[in-house]
């Protein structure tokens, strides 16, 4: 028994990390194939974000900033889909500005693959309800130019067609933008805060990836952003609030199981550490000839 116990403790301390990878892979994959439908709670953070969305009225203009590469999009996808569904359903006018060269791939991935049917259902049309300006916010200089002289700095959309005669005629400066919706990884475009939020007092909401949330919490705490949607979890909660289930809610089962597996492995690792690693190193120290 004693020997078996020691072996088990050794296994807990020295197991091959690839077993952890395999378990995680299985636990993430299975609920994706066959969702369990575990209940989820809605955080205060997401409720505040939703309340900010509700302040918008039909016809309001939103600067829709996509400062994310394709990899980050995979994490922001539920939040992006849910937020855009809200815009479409409520007749909010958006102009999409990319802040990352990889954003080009997102136009097809989000608007064509995910939202096309939804836009058709609500008769949400290009030029009348939304416009894609392309890689229009690469840096602070471009953001400043757009904020101070919109008509002078932006004349065509991403395909080179004139934006004259569209809802963007109403935008002269940042003061004419009713809200900024920023979908970003890491710091995103600081120009949005520096040149639009601080100068014109335009409210800004943000959907941020998990590892960069602490940075966004600082901006939320300081009142620089008024709503924060946290990663895939926040996206799934928003899906629940707007009653539009999507990829976020499907991912939540895997999210829960992945977190629990990590906690279990931390506990196992610590049992192994005290039962084997620490014991062995103490024994080695006591037998060392000084």
């Amino acid at each position, binding site marked *: 028994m004693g020997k078996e116990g020691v072996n088990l403790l050794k296994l807990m301390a020295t197991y091959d*990390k690839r077993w*952890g*990878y395999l378990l*995680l*892979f299985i636990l993430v994959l299975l609920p994706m194939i066959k969702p369990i439908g*575990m*209940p*989820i*709670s809605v*955080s205060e953070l997401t409720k505040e974000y939703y309340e900010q969305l509700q302040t918008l009225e039909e016809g309001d203009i939103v600067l829709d900033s996509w400062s994310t*590469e*394709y*990899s*980050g999009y*995979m*994490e922001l996808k539920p939040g992006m889909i849910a937020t855009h569904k809200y815009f479409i359903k409520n007749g909010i006018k958006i102009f999409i500005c990319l802040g990352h060269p*990889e954003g*080009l*791939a997102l136009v*097809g*991935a989000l608007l064509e693959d995910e939202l096309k049917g939804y836009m058709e259902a609500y008769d949400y049309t290009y030029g009348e309800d939304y416009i894609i300006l*392309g*890689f229009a916010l*690469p*840096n*602070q*200089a*471009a953001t*400043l130019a757009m904020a101070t002289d919109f008509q002078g700095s932006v004349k065509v959309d991403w*395909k080179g067609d004139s934006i004259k005669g569209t809802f963007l005629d109403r935008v002269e400066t940042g003061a004419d933008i009713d809200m900024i919706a920023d979908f970003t990884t890491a710091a995103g475009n600081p*120009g949005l805060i*520096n*040149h639009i939020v*601080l*100068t014109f007092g335009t409210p800004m909401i943000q959907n941020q990836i998990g590892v960069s949330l*602490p*940075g966004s*919490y*600082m901006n939320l*705490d300081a009142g620089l952003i008024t709503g924060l949607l946290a990663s895939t*979890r926040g996206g*799934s909660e928003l899906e629940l609030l707007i009653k539009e289930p999507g990829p976020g809610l499907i991912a*939540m089962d895997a*999210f*829960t199981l*992945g*977190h*629990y597996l*990590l*906690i279990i*492995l*931390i506990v196992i*690792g*610590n049992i192994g*550490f*005290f039962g084997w690693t620490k014991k062995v190193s103490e024994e080695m120290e006591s037998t060392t000839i000084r």
Partner: protein
Amino acid sequence: MIGFVPYFIKVPQVNEFANTLTNISSVVGQFTIVIAIYSQYRRSLRFIRERRKGWVYNIYLLTFMSLMILIGFTWGEHNATYMWLVNSIVAPCSSVVYGILAFYMFSAGARAFRARSLKASLLIVAGVIVLLYQAPLTGSYIPGLSPYATFLTETVGMSLNRMFAIAIITGAIMLNVRMLTGRELAFLGFAREEES
């Protein structure tokens, strides 16, 4: 320092001047892409010439970098070939790298949390509370965890993050000054780097 002032004192002239400086730095910053491309070619070609570890990957890197630049400049970003490269090469590679990171972070989390000392034990307790709260099912069944997790994230985590941000920004300013004064050249590929 002029860039800091408008955040604390509202003087339109200073604000305008700070904006102009930001504008100048952004425009100058865009030109650094030329130096970045030059440095990458120079570094990768040296790796290939000297047959250093991983030199084959540098051929792959240079090939696709050249291809993207060539097609982008010649036919523009809406060209079908360019879009195919973005959608079929860049996007999947980007997703794969991100996906793999999750496994590394998971493994690192599971192995790093060891109660080797009192401080490490406190870290584990805090980590487990936040992890439990972040798991949607627990958040639903044990709402009492929320104030503790929120305190750890928004008070402890945020203060540490602020400290981290200040340290990084200070370091970046110092590094930039050293680079501008010619004391730090290895980053730009102008000085010979140590064998990796």
